[in-house]
């Protein structure tokens, strides 16, 4: 979708304090200067290949396909990237851009810790100072990722305000950026926030969809019928969808975190339950009350535990080009175990939401149909939390 002035239809925009306008304007100018600059592109492509391990594999999940008895299922293995998720694609791009802009320090929010780990990693590689903001609820859910970030040389700030989750981490990072921007770039982790972030992050993640196209043409000689990805802010989904938006034969499906169920207040299903609002710099859908107070959302997955969705997804939903479906904690945990046992792949609990949806629909589809699931991350980080969820007592 061609965006204008940072808008995707009515969504997007730059709803931020005046103090930050200079920072996003500087970022936008730098992005336009470097995104097609041959040296920048060469350096980024080199890092994606040699450091991150791209292209990631497209794996035919034969056992899962046979078990479900319908559509052929492929897994786009973003979990095999360095640092264990798709987050590295965007981070290498943004930190390289920060370097070109003459910045010496990067800051980032993180929910599950995947974006924080990726940012800390890129900062270590490119000699940048790094500070990560993470809600205390999440630092408790993801203790190992906190230690990982510190191991990589980042300072981790435990955010104690509000619901102490991802949205509060974003608030804290925005406040920090407003107080220090001359030497600092905010490396935002999803296709959200004020323009130009939704565009920049989507562009850096769109490598996922481009690779799926090439790999699928090589494997099957045609495009998939459906691509499926989990959606919090929506960066792996945006990266998966983008190359196929102009291909009407490819269905685009985003899987939202429904927590305890869409009818239970404890969920984070923004499209299912949200209304249009303006928050975190963008006009989009948000879980909120009748007075526009942002709702304290919930999901077992810290990475999807966010009350909003990126503006391009809001637009894809409104135009009907993509569809968004809710997946509960229980369904995601089942899928987490299912993929582990069926294919020997432990998915991130975020990605397990996409696996769960495909388990519901693949069996009813014809055997000549093809589904690609983007496995956005690996599940090592979630093992302890899932054990707790299942009532298993483990000690390290």
């Amino acid at each position, binding site marked *: 979708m061609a965006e204008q002035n940072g808008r995707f239809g009515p969504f997007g*925009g*730059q*709803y*931020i*304090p*005046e*103090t*930050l*306008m*200079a*920072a996003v304007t500087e970022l936008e100018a730098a992005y336009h200067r470097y995104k097609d600059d041959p040296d920048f592109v060469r350096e980024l492509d080199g890092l994606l290949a040699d450091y991150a391990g791209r292209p990631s594999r497209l794996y035919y999940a034969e056992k899962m396909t046979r078990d479900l008895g319908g559509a052929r299922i492929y897994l786009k293995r973003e979990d095999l990237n360095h640092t264990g998720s798709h987050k590295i694609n965007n981070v290498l791009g943004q930190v390289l851009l920060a370097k070109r802009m003459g910045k010496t320090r990067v800051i980032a929010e993180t929910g599950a810790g995947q974006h924080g780990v990726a940012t800390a990693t890129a900062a270590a590689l490119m000699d940048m100072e790094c500070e990560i903001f993470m809600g205390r609820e999440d630092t408790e859910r993801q203790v190992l990722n906190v230690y990982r970030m510190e191991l990589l040389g980042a300072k981790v700030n435990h955010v104690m*305000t*509000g619901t102490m989750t991802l*949205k*509060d981490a974003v*608030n804290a990072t*925005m*406040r920090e950026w*407003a*107080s*220090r*921007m001359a030497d600092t770039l905010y490396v935002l982790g999803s296709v959200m926030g004020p323009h130009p972030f939704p565009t920049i992050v989507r562009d850096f993640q769109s490598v996922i969809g481009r690779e799926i196209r090439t790999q699928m043409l090589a494997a099957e000689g045609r495009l998939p019928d459906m691509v499926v990805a989990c959606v919090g802010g929506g960066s792996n989904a945006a990266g998966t969808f983008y190359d196929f938006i102009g291909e009407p034969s490819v269905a685009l499906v985003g899987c939202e975190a429904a927590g305890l169920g869409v009818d239970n207040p404890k969920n984070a299903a923004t499209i299912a339950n949200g*209304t*249009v*609002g*303006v*928050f*975190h*710099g963008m*006009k989009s859908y*948000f879980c*909120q009350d*009748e*007075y*526009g*107070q*942002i709702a304290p959302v919930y999901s077992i997955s810290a990475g999807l535990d966010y009350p909003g969705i990126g503006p391009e997804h809001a637009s894809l939903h409104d135009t009907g080009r993509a569809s968004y479906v809710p997946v509960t904690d229980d369904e995601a945990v089942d899928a987490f175990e299912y993929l582990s046992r069926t294919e020997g792949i432990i998915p991130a609990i975020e990605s397990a939401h996409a696996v769960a949806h495909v388990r519901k629909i693949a069996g009813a589809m014809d055997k000549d149909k093809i589904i690609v699931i983007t496995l956005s991350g690996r599940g090592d980080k979630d093992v302890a939390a899932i054990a707790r969820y299942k009532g298993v007592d483990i000690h390290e």
Partner: protein
Amino acid sequence: MNKGRGAARIEGAFAGGKALITFLTGGDPGVATTEKLIRAMDEEGADLIEIGIPFSDPIAEGPIIQDADERALAAGTTVDDLFAMVARLRAGAGGAAGLTKPLLFMTYYNPIFTYGVERFAAKCVESGLDGLIVPDVPYEESGEIKAVFEPHGIAIISMIAPTSADRETMIAKDAQGFLYCVSSLGVTGVRSEIRSGIGGIIEAVRQVSGVPCAIGFGISTPAQAEEMAVLADGVIVGSAIVRIIAEHGAESEAPVRAYVRAMKDALRAK
């Protein structure tokens, strides 16, 4: 551009010398206290009063006002409660005359948007508000609210930050009521020192803007108010007052009165 009713009333607050603009979070710790404190601030010489609509995620606020928002929301405060409070203040009650000084809401955009922009504007007029400060709607996005509020005579206050640079002229030219000049980078709060560069910024914007300039963010002491009043037409005091309310809760009236009186005295000397 014709000056709206609200913009003219807000400008009028600067007519009698250096203006003191005071802020408090509506409903912290309860609407009754806020109502009492607004009357008290009015009586002690505040020229213009800003009422913050508490928001779940106030990204431009420091810890003092963040906590106030949390207290107000925990008390169940809604924007409807605050509209009703403003209407009561304007009407006067219990022998007290109606409050005549200009009143502003300080609110993030989402509570306006979710309420319905047109409905919100109509309620502003009905209850007796004069203007709005919407810190997450910068110049580029302000068209969609100005188009609705201006016909109702409700002013949208523009902000200039230390980072505005070549945006200053564009923002200042369109300013209504007064121009809110942010003293420092970062968020609201109490600061021991305020950068001196703000004087240069105000000189520059005065070349293109006909409205008064007030400095906010970080001002807490009478000495700071005096210092800033040399540079500007008024000072905005928020976190320092909210900190008093945080300490004294429903018993804040006496200390808030004393504080506002001291700040106003400092400005009267200028």
